[in-house]
């Protein structure tokens, strides 16, 4: 009778240990997989701080517009176009 009871207790312990190990492995596996995925995602996302280089073929490279400080002596409105340079001049007769 005593032998029969001790076998049963041993079986219960074995089941408990198996379930505990199974749950531990399942949980381990679950968390270990999540960490690995996050790491891979971060590695494949390009860094925003890295320089972007664009190469144009067959066209001149675009030029940045020159920005100059406004000058105080530059008129805001251009003067009307002046008369063209005379081809000659009328004057009282002289050498």
């Amino acid at each position, binding site marked *: 009778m005593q032998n029969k009871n001790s076998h049963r207790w041993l079986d219960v312990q074995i089941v408990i240990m198996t379930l505990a190990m199974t749950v531990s492995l399942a949980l381990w596996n679950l968390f270990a997989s999540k960490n690995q995925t996050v790491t891979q995602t971060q590695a494949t996302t390009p860094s925003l701080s890295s320089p972007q280089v664009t190469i144009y073929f067959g066209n001149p490279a675009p030029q940045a517009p020159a920005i100059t400080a406004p000058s105080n002596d530059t008129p805001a409105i251009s003067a009307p176009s002046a*008369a063209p340079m005379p081809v000659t*001049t*009328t*004057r009282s*007769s002289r050498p």
Partner: protein
Amino acid sequence: MNQIEFHAMGSRMLAMVDSNSIPAEHLLNQVPVWFEEWENVLSRFRLDSELSRLNRSTGMPVAVSQTLWDVFHGSCAAETWTDGLVRPTVLDALLQAGYDRSFDFMPTSVSMASSAILNLPDLSTAVGWDESTHSLFLPESVHLDFGGMAKGWSAQQAAIRLAEVGPALVDAGGDIAISGIRSDGDAWPVGILDPFHPDRNLATLRLGACGVATSGVDYHRWQQDGQLRHHIIDPRTGMSAETDVLTATIIAADAVRAEAEAKAVVIIGSRSGMERLEADPELAGVLILQNGEILYSHTMENFLWK
């Protein structure tokens, strides 16, 4: 644009043709030759010129060249236009005032005693001519000097000849003849010299077919026994004109008319001169007075480049 500059008739000459063709270039190179021929006929400073020989041949008919014939009749027309204010019978008065050589060789002061020659004869009544023999007859007391008229006529004649190869402008010492607007349809820009600042222009004109001339007492002047003299003789006094006009620039149909009118305006002064300009719609003018004032005829509005 082809152009050539040279010296003739005591002045700087400029001829321009608005064409780059070979014929234009060839014809332009002929312009100094033409002026040399005309100066040999019309200059009173060349003793062997046709005019000098005519002046030495008073009292007899003398057959003259086509050039002298044309300039003589142009001068008759100028006398009519200006009511006798401009007449080439002023030679004796000019000599009396001391203007006896080309201005290039004039001293700043001459000591010849001056006396007015009061009776300057009309060209058209004093001088006889015969169309059939192309001859002129000068009375004993009459001698001719075409002066600026010769330059105006030469400029006009050269512009007419050059017009065969393109629009042309000829500047004969300030007397300018233009055959027409430029090939691109634009006007010719021509400056008016500021006599108070000879290194700059007072204004710029926009010109098509016309003549423009400036006459004045700002340059050709000298002292004679302490009296200021100049080359523009008032036929009413036989003396250098007493005028408040320093220079008169006139635009007219051709350079001969412009030259005659400019001289007339200087002789009669600013008040009568402006009245004269305003009364004739075929004339436009700018008068620069000795006091610095500038007067524009209302027709100048059409010619000023703004």
